[in-house]
């Protein structure tokens, strides 16, 4: 047994010497082989067992997740609740669709009322029977500004013209001419105001139609335009009132003029009578 062991050791020693000798002879080749061994040998890698770093990361991510849920999620949910309340309030209290539909329906009803009014205002009302009055009446009721220049002729045909200087003294002719002028002016203005009123009715119809396709947000814009038209309409009404007041003023002036002229004639007559009596 011991001999056998000594024999194996001898063989190993011999083998090692052979290997050593080979390496000594082929050192570079051995170095290259060692290099290849180094390069292809497996590297040290991290095992699958969780490291303390991963545990911290997992705990941190979990905390972030719960924080996102509680802080951001909770905050957003609260905001959503308030916004939903506002939306519900706006839809059920401020701008309910049914109420908007009712308001639009009312605009249509108002248009219906005024369509009736417009129709009845178009019923002809001319009643003059003779030629000259009929001609003047047709001009006055024409509602056409184009007819205004014809007023003077129609007026003169019915009410006559200013007397000639041979037929009336200058003060009387002045009064007559002024009175004719204001009467004719008033008739011409009446034609113009009728025409303006027709235009206003058409514009108001258009505005009302626009209201029927408006929304609560756009209605104030239309209302602003309607207000402007209303101001304009008031101005035209005032203009008509002014013309009426002019006619009344001239009428009053005529009454005063009659007194003035009458007293002047009375004085003249008195003087003439005195002169006649003195001659006798």
């Amino acid at each position: 047994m011991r001999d056998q062991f000594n024999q194996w050791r001898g063989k190993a020693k011999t083998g090692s010497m052979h290997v050593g000798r080979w390496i000594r002879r082929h050192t570079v080749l051995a170095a290259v082989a060692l290099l290849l061994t180094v390069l292809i040998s497996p590297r040290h890698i991290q095992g699958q067992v969780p490291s303390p770093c991963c545990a911290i990361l997992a705990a941190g991510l979990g905390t972030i997740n719960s924080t996102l849920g509680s802080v951001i999620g909770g905050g957003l949910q609260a905001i959503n609740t308030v916004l939903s309340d506002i939306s519900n309030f706006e839809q059920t209290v401020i701008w309910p669709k049914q109420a908007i539909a009712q308001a639009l329906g009312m605009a249509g009803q108002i248009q219906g009322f005024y369509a009736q009014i417009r129709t009845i205002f178009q019923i002809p009302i001319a009643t003059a029977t003779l030629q000259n009055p009929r001609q003047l009446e047709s001009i006055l009721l024409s509602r056409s500004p184009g007819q205004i220049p014809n007023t003077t002729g129609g007026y003169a045909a019915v009410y006559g013209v200013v007397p000639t200087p041979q037929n009336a003294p200058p003060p009387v002719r002045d009064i007559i001419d002024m009175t004719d002028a204001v009467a004719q002016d008033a008739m011409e203005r009446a034609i113009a105001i009728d025409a303006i009123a027709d235009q206003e009715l058409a514009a108001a119809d258009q505005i009302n139609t626009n209201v029927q396709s408006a929304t609560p947000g756009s209605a104030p814009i239309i209302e602003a335009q309607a207000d402007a038209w209303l101001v304009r309409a008031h101005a035209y009404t005032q203009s008509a009132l002014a013309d009426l007041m002019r006619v009344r003023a001239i009428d009053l002036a005529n009454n005063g003029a009659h007194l003035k002229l009458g007293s002047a004639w009375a004085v003249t007559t008195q003087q003439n009578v005195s002169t006649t009596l003195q001659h006798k």
Partner: protein
Amino acid sequence: MLLFTALFGGLMLLSIESRRRMVAVLLIGCIAILGVSPPAAQAQFCLPCVIQAVLATISQTIGNWLSVINGVVSDIRKLYEQTIWPISAINLAKSQIQSIIARFRGVIQSIMTINPHTATLPNPAALENIIRNRGTGDLGTVPQVYVNAFRPVPQAGAIAPQDRDMTDMDDALAQDNLMLLKVADQAQDLELQAADQIESLVGNPNINVSAPGSSSLITAAAVSAEIKSQAIMQKMMAAMLRQEAGRVAHDNAIRKRTATFAGQLQNNMTNVLQHK
């Protein structure tokens, strides 16, 4: 690493006899060591610190902003519900409208039903009736009823031609206005109906019928009705203007004729005195 260095060192010792071999082994060893040497280690960062910073950002910065936004939105809701459109104020306004309707509408309507009829004779009574019935259905009968009360224009030959024209014109202007007033009466009734409907709609207690948001539409429609109302007013003013102008023109025509007659009379008297 140390093992490989030792091995290459051993190989270099073995090749100490040959300089070229030693250099070759040295080079190969260097390459091997470089190959197996670990990369330069990065300095370790503080992961808990980073996580803490993210948490702080979420809970403090974003959380605070969300709280601020929530506060603002809540304030808006409060403003809407308690200051601008409190339901109690909306209902109060509607009840006030209903109260005004109850207090005034009936009274005014009953006052307007007072329609004086004071003519005593048949023809004037008929005319009074027709000019005050607020209807347009009998508009065509006005001229005849008018003639019955005020008599027709005299036949030619029975009156001076200019007087005949003026009489016809006076009658025409008067009748035209009486007819226009019947039209205006009916228009006023329709306007009153429109006004009643507008008022009833805005005062309706049901929020689905009248709401603050829908009132702007009703207001716009009401303003357009106001324009039309003004236009009707202007038509009436124009009619009054025609009538006044006709009256002044009539007076002036008489004045013209008087002046002409006076001039003629003066001439005639002068002639008579001269003949004597």
